[in-house]
C-alpha cells in the first residue's frame, strides 16, 4: 500500500518543531508500524537526510520504550498494544497518518518523536518499592499470599511505564501509572508495611513533576497497552485518604 505520513520533526528540546510530509510506497500489511518507519528512515539515509528519532527497543510490547500519537491516539488504533505491536494491516492504501510525540509538560521532547520520561523514574524513586535489602530473607513460602490478591497485584505490575496514560489524558495526569505501582505493592502483605508513606510520597512527587489531576475520563485505561484498570486509581484514592487520616 501507499501512505502519506505527517511526522513531527523537532531538532532538539529548544528548537521549534513542525510537521513534515513524507510519501511511502510498498508498505506490506505484515509490517509492524516501526518497521514501516525503519523503511522510511532507510529512504531518508539514501537522500542524505537526517533520520526520524524515536525510542524503541524490544519490539514486542514489554520494554515500554516506544510510543507516539498516531492519528491522535496513544499507540494508535487498536487496544491492548504498544506502538511496536501495531501492524500495518490496521491501515489501508492511500491513508494519511499523523505521527507526533506524546505531549505533556512532564514529558519534554528530546528530538522528533523521542521524549524524556525520566519523571516516571523520579516518582518511583521516592518510594515505589519495598525496602527489602539483599539477603537475610525468609523462605519464599513463608509469606503465603491469597491468589486473588496476587493476581490483582500482577495485573497492576504489568505496567510498562510507556506514558500512554499521560498522553491520552486531557489533564496529562499520571494517576494510572502511579496507582498501578501503588496497587502492585499495596495489595501484597510485604508491601502493606510501607503503604501509607509510599502513597503520600508518590502522590507528592507526581504533583512536583507537573502531571495533572484525574478527572475520571478513563482515557488512560482505554489507551493503556497493558489494559491496566482505572480501579487502581480508585484504590490509590482510598489508600491516600486513609494515609492522611
Amino acid at each position: 500500500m501507499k501512505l502519506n505520513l505527517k511526522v513531527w520533526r523537532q531538532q532538539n528540546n529548544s528548537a521549534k518543531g513542525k510537521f513534515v510530509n513524507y510519501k511511502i510506497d510498498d508498505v506490506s500489511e505484515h509490517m509492524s508500524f516501526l518497521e514501516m518507519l525503519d523503511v522510511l528512515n532507510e529512504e531518508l539515509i539514501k537522500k542524505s537526510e537526517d533520520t526520524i528519532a524515536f525510542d524503541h527497543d524490544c519490539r514486542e510490547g514489554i520494554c515500554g520504550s516506544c510510543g507516539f500519537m498516531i492519528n491522535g491516539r496513544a499507540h494508535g488504533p487498536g487496544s491492548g498494544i504498544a506502538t511496536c505491536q501495531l501492524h500495518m494491516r490496521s491501515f489501508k492504501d492511500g491513508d494519511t497518518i499523523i505521527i507526533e510525540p506524546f505531549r505533556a509538560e512532564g514529558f519534554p521532547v528530546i528530538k522528533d518523536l523521542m521524549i524524556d520520561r525520566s519523571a516516571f523514574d523520579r516518582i518511583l524513586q521516592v518510594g515505589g518499592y519495598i525496602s527489602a535489602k539483599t539477603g537475610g530473607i525468609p523462605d519464599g513460602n513463608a509469606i503465603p499470599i491469597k491468589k486473588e490478591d496476587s493476581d490483582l497485584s500482577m495485573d497492576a505490575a504489568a505496567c510498562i511505564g510507556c506514558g500512554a496514560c499521560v498522553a491520552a489524558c486531557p489533564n496529562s495526569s499520571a494517576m494510572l501509572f502511579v496507582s498501578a505501582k501503588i496497587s502492585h505493592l499495596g495489595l501484597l502483605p510485604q508491601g502493606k508495611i510501607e503503604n501509607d508513606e509510599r502513597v503520600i510520597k508518590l502522590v507528592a512527587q507526581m504533583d512536583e513533576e507537573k502531571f495533572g489531576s484525574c478527572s475520571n475520563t478513563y482515557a488512560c485505561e482505554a489507551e493503556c497497552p497493558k489494559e491496566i484498570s482505572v480501579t487502581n486509581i480508585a484504590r490509590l484514592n482510598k489508600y491516600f485518604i486513609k494515609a492522611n487520616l
Partner: protein
Amino acid sequence: MILDSKIPAGPLEKKWTSHRFNLKLVNPANRRKYKIIVVGTGLAGSSAAASFAELGYNVLSFSYHESPRRAHSIAAQGGINAPKNYANDGDSVWRLFYDTIKGGDYRAREANVYRLAEVSGSIIDQCVAQGVPFARDYAGYLDNRSFGGAQVSRTFYARGQTGQQLLLGAYQALLRQVNEKKITFFPRREMLDLILHDGKARGIVVRNLVNGKIETYTADAVVLATGGYGNVFYLSTNANASNATAIWRAHKRGAFFANPCYTQIHPTCIPVSGDYQSKLTLMSESLRNDGRIWVPKKKNDLRKPNEIPENERDYYLERLYPSFGNLVPRDIASRRAKEICDNGFGVGETKMAVYLDFVDSIKRLGKETIKQKYGNLFDMYKQITAEDPYNVPMRIYPAVHYTMGGLWVDYNLMSNLPGLFVIGEANFSDHGANRLGASALMQGLADGYFILPYTIGNYLASEKFGKINLTDSSIKSVKNNVEEIISKLFNIKGKTSVNEFHKKLGKIMWNNVGMGRSKKSLNEAINQIKKLKKEFWSDVKIVGEKENVNAVIEKAQRVADFIELGELLATDALNRQESCGGHFREEFQFDGEAMRNDKKFTYVSAWEFKGENKKEKLHKEKLEFENVSLTQRSYK
C-alpha cells in the same frame, strides 16, 4: 599466559562456603571510600548496583536507555529456576547442578554451576520480599512449572512476564539507592571504551546519546553487565539496541573472549515473514509444557492443520525422545526442527516452520486454564500473525536467542584484566555450550545479588588504588581513540547504510555459522566477513549530526564491532572440531545428535586480541570434572 580460574579447593558442596570465608572484607566504614562503575541495568547490572550500594559503596550506573527498566531482561517470559522442591518431586541443589552441567553438554565449570544452583533458592526468597508477584496456588503458596532438560517442576514464574517482574524488583531496589544518593544513574550513555590505569580497569568512556558528547568516568572497579551478542546474526529475539560494543571494546583492551561460538538458537519463535523484518519474537519455552510439536507425515502437505487426521501427523519430538518428549533441551529441539524442515516436512507459506499445537491441552484443561497460563503469549502471537492459536496451531521456527559465550571470568567473576568484572549474559561462565530454559534470569540475579557483592569486596580490600586524574595521558588517549573512530565513520561518506551492512553480516552468520556449521561453511564465513569489513570501512554512509541524538552513528559502531566479533565467532567454531550443545559441526555427529570430543576439547577457548586485523591468540582453560562423569547426553 596460564588462565587461573581460581576455583577453590575442597569438596564441591563446600567450595563457595569456604571461599566466602576466605575472601577479604572491606570494613563498613571504609566502603564509602570506594567507587564502582556498573555498565548495564538488566537483571545482573541492576541487582549488582543495588546490592553494592546497600553495602555502602558508591555506585555509578550507566545505561544507553532512558531508564534502567528498559533493559532487555524485561522481555524474558518463562521463568526462573530454583531447586526448592516445593513440588515434592525429588528436586535438590545437586539435581539442578547436574541438569545444568549436562544441559550445557559438559562444557562449563563444575564449581561455578554448583554455586549457581546453591544460591538460586535465595533469589526466589529475595524477589518475593521485594514484591515480585510470582504465580501462586489457591492455598497462597508459590506455583511451579517445568522447562526443557528437566524432569522436575522447579520454574517459578509471573505469568509470561517473569523477566519483567524480576527486573522491576531489581530496578526498584536500584531506585531506592538512587534516592539514598548511593547510586548515580547516567541515562542514555553508551560505553565505548575501557580505561586501564597501572594495569587495572579504572574507568569508562561513554557517548552521551542526547548531545553526542564524549564523557569519561573513573572508579576503583568496573563491572560490565551489558548482555549478549545475539544481534551479530541481525535477526534474533534480542532487542534492537542489544549489542556487544562494551564487551568487544574491553576485549580489544585485553580482556579475553571465551567460547564465542556457543550461541543458542531457541526452538520456538515466530517465523520470518519478510525482508523488512527487524526482529524475531520468542514464544516462551513454557509453551512446550502444554503444546505439542508436530509436522505432517507427508512431504509438502498443503492441507490446513485441522484437516490433517491424527494418524497422519508426526509428533517427532515425542517419537524420538519418549522420556523428555516436547521438553528436550533447546539445542536439540531446534536442530530437529531445522532437519525436518530441510527434509521438506515444514509447514506454512515459507515451509520453514513446524506446528505447536494446544488443542489437546485445551480439551484436557479447558480454554480458561490455558488462557490463564499463556494468555499474553497467545495474544502476542495473534497480534503478529493475525492467527488465533486457540483455534489454529502456532507456527514456530528456531531463532537466535542467547549467547553462552562472553568475556572470560574467573570464579570471582573477574576477567583477566584486574578490576574488570563481567556478569550476566556478558560473561561466559555457567551455561557451557547450551543454556537450559529459566537459567538466564537465575544467573543474572545470582551474579548480581549473591556472588559479586562478596567477590568484589575481596578485590577492593586486596588492592591499592593510586589517584587517577582525568588529565592523565592514559585517559586522554582512550578518549581520543573513541573520538577518532566516530570522526572516521562520519568521514567515509559512502553509499551503503549501516542497516544494509548489518543485514549482510546476519545472512553470512545465519547461513554459515548458524544451526549447522562445517569447516567449509566456516572458512567461507571468515572470508566473507573480512571482505565485508573492508567494504564497511570504505562505503558506510552516516547521516545526521555528531552532537545530537543520532541512531545512525550509534548503530554504525555496534555493527562495526559485530563484524569483528562475527569473525572471531566463526574462528572459534572452526577451531572446535566437535559438536557440543548449541555448537553443531556437521562433520561430528552420531545418529543426528551432537558428538563431543572430550579427549581434545574439554576446555574453554579464551581468545586474546593481538591488534587490528591480526589473528587472535587462543588460550585454553582445561575443564576438570571431579563429580560428574562425561557421558553422551541422552534425552531418549
